[in-house]
Each structure stands twice: as structure tokens, then as C-alpha cells.
């Protein structure tokens, strides 16, 4: 890892914030903490963070207004909204206010971590690549073809999008809900292991005739596609 990611957590629950800071530190992410909306807005405006994690309900200034104010000032740091409200309508209002991602409370830390990492990287890398490569696997976004070691791997359209999302975030953990949100564009809880079944189908297609496994299951978190021979980018 070249540069350490630096994030700001705006959360009024001191205990939760301390837990998050410690957990992020263990994964190599530096975090600052603001315990109310006003100081959060000030810190986010004055410093250069990679990601802002903002609770929706904050004292002195609520989370959504912090985001609106930041965007108004021309600060486009990616924002992840944490909310204890119901997610049917709340997600829409949150994203409309300028948030980039949304996570209902209570959440698993792995879920938060995966999302923060994806958001933080989005800031740096352009999405303009037409071809994604992980090891000997190659995905051409223009012609919608996938090749491994030069041999074409036939995929269904949904499998293609699943692989595309995984490869776009190669080297990073992608959770099941992230896959459902980004590949299927649904935000509900599918109750069963639907995503796992889709991933294992995809895995059998891209790994069946090859020795080198690419698609890893990360226990308690999700999936990651990575070339095991080389360190992550």
C-alpha cells in the first residue's frame, strides 16, 4: 500500500466512534473523529480526507445538511452515510443529498470497511479503462468478452456484470450486499444465499479449466478477485 487512507468519522456516539477508529487502525486506515455536525463540517472542509463516514442524526447540524453544505462548497470527498432510519425512503433522501453510499445501522464492520475502501479508491483511479486485467483473466468492457489465457470464457450478461464489478474492485473485498446493489441494483435483503450461488457459478466458469484460483471468498466479509502471484495494486 503506497499511501494510507485517511478518513473522517462524524458520529455522536463516542463509544461507537472509538470502536470504529480502532478497527480502522488495525486495517491500516487512519481516522479522525468529529462528534457533532458543525465540527465535522469544519474538519471536512479544512482537511483533505479520502472518505467521510457521516451519521445521519447528529447534534448541532444533521448529517444530510453537512453533506449538502460540503457539496455546496465544492468539496466532493466521497461520503458514506450511516443511518438508523428505515431504509426504504431514507436511502433515496441520503443519496439525493449528495451521499455516495449508504449503510443502515446496525452494520457489520467488514461491510463498512469494504465500502469505505471502494469509495476511497474511487477517488484516485479513473474508471476509463476499457479492459480490466487480473492475472491472466481479461475483461473487455466494449466487446463484452472475457478471456483467460487467450481463451474466451462464455458468460451470461449478469455474470459478465458480476465479474466486471469484481474486477473493477480487484484486490478489494466486495460484500454480498455490495454485489446485489451494484450488479442487480436492488437494495433489499434477499434473505437467502442468492449471491453466493451466483458467485460460485461464475467461479466455476472462470476457474474450472484453470489451475490458478482468482476469486476468493473472504470469510465473514465477502469476495475478492486477486492475482495471488502478485501483490495487490
Amino acid at each position, binding site marked *: 500500500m503506497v499511501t494510507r487512507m485517511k478518513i473522517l468519522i462524524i458520529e455522536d456516539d463516542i463509544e461507537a466512534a472509538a470502536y470504529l477508529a480502532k478497527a480502522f487502525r488495525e486495517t491500516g486506515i487512519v481516522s479522525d473523529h468529529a462528534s457533532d455536525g458543525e465540527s465535522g463540517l469544519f474538519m471536512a472542509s479544512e482537511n483533505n480526507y479520502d472518505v467521510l463516514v457521516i451519521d445521519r442524526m447528529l447534534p448541532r447540524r444533521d448529517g444530510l445538511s453537512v453533506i449538502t453544505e460540503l457539496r455546496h462548497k465544492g468539496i466532493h470527498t466521497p461520503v458514506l452515510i450511516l443511518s438508523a432510519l*428505515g*431504509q*426504504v*425512503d431514507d436511502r*433515496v433522501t441520503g443519496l439525493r443529498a449528495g451521499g455516495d453510499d449508504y449503510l*443502515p445501522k*446496525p452494520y*457489520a464492520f467488514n461491510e463498512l470497511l469494504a465500502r469505505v475502501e471502494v469509495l476511497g479508491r474511487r477517488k484516485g483511479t479513473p474508471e476509463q479503462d476499457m479492459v480490466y486485467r487480473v492475472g491472466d483473466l481479461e475483461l473487455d468492457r466494449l466487446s463484452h468478452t472475457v478471456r483467460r489465457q487467450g481463451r474466451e470464457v462464455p458468460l451470461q450478461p*449478469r455474470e459478465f456484470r458480476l465479474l466486471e464489478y469484481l474486477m473493477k474492485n480487484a484486490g478489494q473485498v466486495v460484500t454480498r450486499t455490495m454485489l446485489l446493489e451494484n450488479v*442487480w441494483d*436492488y*437494495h*433489499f*435483503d*434477499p*434473505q*437467502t*444465499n*442468492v449471491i453466493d*450461488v*451466483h458467485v460460485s*457459478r461464475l467461479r466455476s466458469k472462470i476457474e474450472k479449466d484453470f489451475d490458478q484460483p482468482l476469486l476468493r471468498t473472504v470469510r465473514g466479509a465477502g469476495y475478492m478477485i486477486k492475482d495471488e502471484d502478485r501483490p495487490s495494486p
Partner: protein
Amino acid sequence: MNRLRVLFRTTAFRLSALYLLLFSLCAAFLVFYVTAMSEGLLQQQTRDAVTAEVAQIENIYARAGVNGLLRALERRARQPGANLYVIAGPTGEILAGNVASLQPGFLDREGWTDEPFRYQRYTDESRKDSHVALAHVLVLDNGLRILVGRDLQEPEKFRVLVRQALMVALGIMGLGALIIWFAIGRNALKRIDRMSDASTRIMAGDLSQRLPMSGSGDEFDRLSESLNAMLGRIEKLNEGLRQVSDNIAHDLKTPLTRLRNKAEAALAHKATNTGYRTSLEEIIGESDQLIRTFNALLMISRVEAGAAAAEMNLVDLSQIAGDCVELYEPVAEEQALRLEAAIDPGICVSGNRELIGQALGNLIDNAIKYAEGGDDPSIKVSLVPGDDGIMLSVADHGPGIPADKRAGVVERFVRLDESRTKPGTGLGLALVEAVMEMHRGSLELADTVSEAQNNRGLTISMVFPPPSA
């Protein structure tokens, strides 16, 4: 006394008082108008008669001179009910006639007297008795003054009579209004009192009470009827709420207790690192299940409260159905089930894509969960437009649900005994029901009809209202 004050405050009383006032004013106006008109008419008649007589007298004077005139007036004055006649000298002293006294200087001006005047007759017993009359004064060329008048006693009597009649009529009207108002107002008040007594009892907590109905179908009955319907709805909601809180107590406390027990057990045993790890993982699993239940509950109440109704737009139902089938198809296959789709393309409804997707997902998930063990391992998702609405159905060939239990399974936390062992929150169908209610549609449960003889299995249909409606 207090009751009388209440009676005064009733709308019935106020209205009747207002009407009484209005009608009295109208009646008074009418009577005054009529008497004024008839009085004017009578005066006019009197004037005409006097004018004719004056003309006659002038005639007689011209023909027979003073003596003839005097004779003629003598004769006329003696007739019963005669007019008034006065002959006076040029200075005003009364020479002859049937009038005892006049105001002095009354005869100075020729022509009509300005207004009715008072006079006394010879026949009057006391000096106080005076009459009212209208008269014309004629001055002859020899200076004699002749007054011809006519008594106004008759019109005056008429006017007094009419006024009296009006007073009596007003009195009767007032009395009648009072009686009617008292009867109506008291009756209304009594019924209102009964209704407020009943509502007091209801407020005290007895929701099974209903407002009394007289059975006459009048406005009070209609009011009671709609209030009773409202009470019925409240009672039902209240009952539902109590049931839900009982269920919440059970369905949330049970996993919480398990959670606590697991944590305690982990602490009590001198466990190894891996032992702790398993316990903690189990605890996380339990809390996830709890979170899931909470989320579902929250979601149902948000949907029921209409929070997501603002996020409704035209959505492609065919695409949502296709997405869901595609999403669940591998899971079904893993369970050795076949997920088939018969989806008419291009069907759009006004709705919330997320919620419809979640609802259909719940139905397919249920079908996969319960369909195993059927003879026919297929689950069919179909979308067909119909006259009664757009049907989005999931048909399985599992054990089905007995007809008498179908209404119950959509309730929160209701799970049939056979399914208690399966994972789930017991909230899936409740959410689907809430989503359909939000879309002004309905949820229908039926047997799966198939070619095979035994129509086993359940078909759940989300019925959306037809686009035109």
C-alpha cells in the same frame, strides 16, 4: 337550571330563536304595511265623499241661497250616522251644525284641514270624549263658513283591531316556537347525552361498546353508524396492535434470550480460544437474525405509514419479475427445483421498484423454502395483465396452505406450525401485503391448479390495479 342553560346553548335553540326573530320582523312589517295601505285607502274614500258633499252644498247654495242651504244642512245633520256640518259666521262663531266645539281658529283657512282633527259632538256625555274627523272648509261669498267633515272612527277602529290581532299572532308564534324548540331540543339533547355517555364508556377503555341507534335512519343514526364503523376499525387495529406486541415480545425476546444464554455459556466454560470463537460467531449470527427481524418490522411500518409512497414512479414490472427470477434461479436449482418464468413483456405500473422487487423476492424465497417434497419440482413465476388487474404470481407445488389458515399467514409473525423449524422472520408475507396495500393492489392466496390430479401447492398472486384505474 343547569340543564336549561345547556338547552339554551343547543343549535336547535339558536336556530329557532333566529327564525322566530326573522318571522316576527316579517309579520310585523307586513301588518304595518297592510294597515297603512288600508288606512290611506279609507282616508281617500272619506275625502272623495266629503268632496262630493261640498260640491252638492255649493250647488244648493247657488240654487236656493242661504236659507235653502241652511235647511238642507239641518236636514242632513239630523240623519243617523250623519257627516259633520258646521255653519259659522265670518268671525268664526258657530251658528248651526252638529258639532259642539272646535279648536279656535280652525275655520279660518279654506280647503282641507291639514290632518285629522279632534272635535266633540253634542251627543258626547263628557267633555273628554272626543272624535277624530277629516273636514273641508268652504267660505261662501257672503262670509259664511261651512265645514263638511266625516268621522274617522271606523278606520281608527280597524287599525287598532289589526294591531291587536298582530300582537296575539306574535304571541302565539313565540309560544309555538318555544314549545317546538323545547320538544325538539330536548329530544336532540337526550340522544346526544346518550351518545356522549357511550363514548365516555368507550374512552374509559371498553372498546366493545357502540353508540346507540334509534333505528329511524335519521341524521343521528347516520352519525352513530359511521362512528360505530370507525370504532370497529379502531378496535380491530387495537387488537392487531396487541397481537403484534405479543408477537414482538415472543419473537424478539426468544432470540435475545438465546443470545444472552450463549454469551453466558461461553463465559461459564473454561473455553479455549476456538471455543470462544465459535460462541462469538454464533452470537453474531443470532444478532444478525435479530437485526433482520428488526429491519423487516421497521420496513413494514414505514411502508404502512406510506413513507415510501413519495418514491413511486412508472416501473417495468416485467423487468422486475425477470430480474427476480434470474436472481433466485440458481438458488432454486441448488435445491433441485426448477424456476420457470412466464412473463408478459412490457408491463408497467406505478410503483416502487425496490419494494416490488423485495416483495416478489420474498414470495420466490418462500416458494423455494417450502416447495421441496412436492411431486413436481417446479416453481412458476408468471406475470399476466387482466381485466381485474395485473397478476404477478408465484405458483409452487409444495404442501400448500389450508384455506382456513390463508388469512392468518399474512399477519406479522404468524408462522404455521409446520414451518416453525425453517429459518425466517415470519414477516415476509406481512411485508408483501403492506407493499401491495401501498400499491393499491391486493395479495391473493390460492391452490395451484395443474394438470395433475392433486392440485397441491400454493399460488400467491400480487394483484396490481389495472393501469387505467
